[in-house]
């Protein structure tokens, strides 16, 4: 039996104990898991980004008060009390981390990918961001300022990537399909399709 199987047995027994004590119910746990597997994910963030690319006044609202926008879109909850959106430009690139735990804007991106929670990312991106991004496949020009945002309180950060060239013919839905979760964390750019 491997270690993970061991843990699975312990977790199943703990769930049985808590269920027996009336502290949790199976339905409650099932629906919570299903919600984060199926409903809350990076598509929420991608829709915000795509709309910001096609609608200048929406983009202005998103950059000035993203919290109000996600409330209007009914995306609140899921660990986001205040959302701040940071815009990438030809001269500024933003990247998000949580060095103390793994805080992440669940409501717009779902649960974080494993690398975001890794010690390598948490330890290094606040010290050598350019090197870390390069190792992850994103080479930025020397004159691009890299701004790192460490989520050390309850403010959550989302990166608004640059719209790729050659996409003027695409509508909002097609644009949203281009926007990757990693681009909204800031470790990737959105490529021309």
């Amino acid at each position, binding site marked *: 039996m491997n270690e993970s199987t061991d843990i699975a047995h312990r977790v199943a027994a703990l769930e049985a104990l808590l269920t027996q004590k009336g502290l949790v119910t199976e339905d409650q746990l099932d629906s919570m898991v299903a919600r*984060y597997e199926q409903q809350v994910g990076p598509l929420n963030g991608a829709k915000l980004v795509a709309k910001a690319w096609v609608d200048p006044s929406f983009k202005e609202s998103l950059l000035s008060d993203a919290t109000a926008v996600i409330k209007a879109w009914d995306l609140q909850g899921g660990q986001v009390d205040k959302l701040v959106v940071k815009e990438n430009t030809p001269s500024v690139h933003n990247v998000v981390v949580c060095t*103390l735990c793994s805080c992440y804007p669940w409501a717009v991106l779902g649960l974080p990918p494993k690398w975001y929670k890794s010690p390598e990312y948490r330890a290094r991106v606040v010290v050598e961001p350019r090197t870390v991004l390069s190792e992850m496949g994103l080479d930025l020009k020397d004159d691009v300022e890299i701004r790192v945002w460490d989520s050390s309180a309850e403010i959550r950060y989302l990166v608004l990537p640059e719209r790729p060239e050659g996409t003027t013919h695409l509508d909002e839905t097609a644009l949203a399909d281009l926007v990757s*979760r990693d681009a909204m964390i800031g470790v990737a750019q959105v490529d021309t399709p």
Partner: protein
Amino acid sequence: MDGIHDLGGKPAFGPVDRSLTTHPFERPWEGRVFAMINAAGRSGAYQNTDQFRHAIERIRPAHYFDHGYFGRWLAALELMLLESSLVSEEELNALPERPINGATPTGTHTAGMTKADHDGQASSLKDLLASERNPPLPHGDARFSENHKVRTISQSMPGHTRLPAFARGRDAVITDCHGLWPFPDARAHGLAPKEQHLYTVRLDRRSTLDQGVVHLDVFELYLEDAS
């Protein structure tokens, strides 16, 4: 508290493996733990997210990385269930396999706290509040505004804190003011002050090796005037 969880700037870690799984739960048990933490909070296992985060911070350092992110959640869940008396030590001991990550309560008197870190935190907060270097303004007004030059405190806190070690004792500039927010460093321990003004600060450029600029969110009690 200083500890393995406070990873920013810690040396000796290698490249980030971006190919690591992107599914929210790599294994089914991770999803069950995720859901149980949320449900147990509603059943009184802990009062707030800050207590939960502090329970993770109390995992024995040698075991912090043993079973990944949700392994830490499981260890914290067991700890908080025990400390809130919702589950007894006998009941936990009767579960199959050994407890993971080695988190154990020591001298506990209530959820999310040990007597030692509660008293240490209370004393540190009291000293900071009385310090002449960071006097609060009357009427609870914010001391700083955008572009104000500040310096982060250099001391560590014995209990829960949201000021990472790499950001201590740094020159910084206020870039955003967020008003009053619940103060996690007191709230995790049931202490005062309940709220603090929160600011986004930009650390001095020398804080990174390759010309990056680091921002983080810092509570007013941890900022000194450096104008």
